[in-house]
Every structure is written in structure tokens, then in C-alpha cells.
């Protein structure tokens, strides 16, 4: 699917790249509305999943692995959400978004094939990755 880094995320990347403002750890969240990420989005553009045993995931900057390639990319260990049943607000997960852990500013978002947790033990397994292209 399509990973989109919105304008706010681009500015954060530039500031960290140029040693203007240090980056932050990240929080990985699932969104539960049928939207396609847009370049103008903010964290408020997404409705986070709720209920059913869902909780956001913390991503530590030091735990990313970086690969020099063409294009270069950063990878994180696979994250697993194990649900206890159905979500409460909106039933279906349509993608994920990543925000800065402290500021809450949106870094990037990506839609994926939708999934509706329903059974105790249902899982979403997601391997965060971002490519510098």
C-alpha cells in the first residue's frame, strides 16, 4: 500500500537531519476508519482503534536497524497485537500511523488490507519499515 509522510513529518525529518531539533521515540497506532493517508494529514486525521485488548506500541529509536542500500531503509522488529475480541468504537482496522512519542506529531501513515478483529486471539502482525526514497 502507500506510505505517506505528511508535511509535518517531513519537517521533523529535516530538522533532525540538520541537527536543529532532535528526534523522538515513536508510538505506533492502528487506525479504524476507512481513510487513505494524505499529505496534509495530522495525527487528528485518524481515529485510533479502541477496545478489544488494543493498545498502541512504543518504538524506541535505538531499536531500529538501518540498512545502507539504494534506497536505504530502516526496519523495526515485528509488532504483534493480540485481540481479546471485537473493537468497540469502529470494528475494522484499515492501517497504521506513527507519531512522535512526546509531541504526538504525525510522522507517517499507511493503509493496509483491512482486518476486523472478532475472536479472542485474533492477531495483527506488522513489521515497521521506512524507506528513504
Amino acid at each position, binding site marked *: *500500500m*502507500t*506510505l*505517506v*509522510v*505528511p*508535511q509535518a513529518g517531513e519537517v521533523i525529518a529535516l530538522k533532525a537531519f540538520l541537527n536543529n531539533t532532535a528526534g523522538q521515540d515513536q508510538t505506533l497506532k492502528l487506525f479504524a*476508519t*476507512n*481513510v*487513505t*493517508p*494524505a*499529505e*496534509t*494529514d*495530522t495525527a487528528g*486525521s485518524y481515529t485510533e482503534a479502541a477496545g478489544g485488548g488494543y493498545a498502541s506500541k512504543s518504538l524506541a529509536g535505538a531499536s531500529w536497524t538501518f540498512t545502507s542500500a539504494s534506497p536505504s531503509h530502516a526496519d523495526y522488529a515485528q509488532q504483534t497485537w493480540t485481540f481479546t*475480541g*471485537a473493537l468497540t468504537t469502529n470494528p475494522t482496522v484499515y492501517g*497504521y500511523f506513527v507519531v512522535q512519542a512526546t509531541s504526538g506529531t504525525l510522522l507517517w501513515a*499507511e493503509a*493496509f*488490507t483491512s*482486518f476486523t478483529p*472478532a*475472536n*479472542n*486471539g*485474533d*492477531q*495483527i*502482525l*506488522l*513489521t*515497521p*519499515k*521506512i*524507506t528513504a*526514497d
Partner: protein
Amino acid sequence: MWPFGKARKHVPQVSGPRAIPTQVAVTSALRRRPTKSHPHEMPPARGMWVRYGDNTGILTDIGHHDIATVMLVDEHGFNTAQVSVPSNVLRQAHFEEIPEKRRPHETVAVSMGYHRRPS
């Protein structure tokens, strides 16, 4: 159904290429309007708000032969249908054409070429 159903595992494929390949974007008929910082038209980018006929959508890809994939949205910004159309039938959306719930502050919008519709 829960709690009686069998647990399922969903492993979505994510982190596709972020950018439209340069050689595709620069030759596309779809352009971004000039802005204060970029006084010339710019190539399109994924996530750009576009207009297709009377519909607003979000550009998700441009392939060979300049065929664009667009997710059309409703007045709330929710997905309605995906279409693949020649880029020359698309244009960048105007500020008012972005669904209100997903519309950025006008200053931000203008910095990305989403000017108000000419009166």
C-alpha cells in the same frame, strides 16, 4: 464469531515505496501548483489531493503510461472507490475541495499548492 471462532492472524504487507518514481512523476501530466517556495509547477506526490470530474480523491500511485490510481473520498474524507485514470484528466484540488474534516489550515494548504478556487 467471538468468543467461539478460531483465532486468525493478519499479516498486512506494508511499507511500499514512498515516492512515485522520479522518471514517472516528472513526465506526468498531473502537476502541483506553484507556491511561494517553489514558483514553478512541481511533479505530483503520493497523498496529494486531486480532483477527478466532480469528485475529490487522494493520489495513491502513478504507473507507466501516466495512469494514476486515485482513492475517491466522500464529503467526510472517507474512501468510496478506487479509480485508475489517465493523469491528464486530474488536477490538484483547490482548498475548498478538500473535505472539511481533513482540510488543513489554509496557510499550510497554500504552502502545498492548495489555493482557493478562483472566483
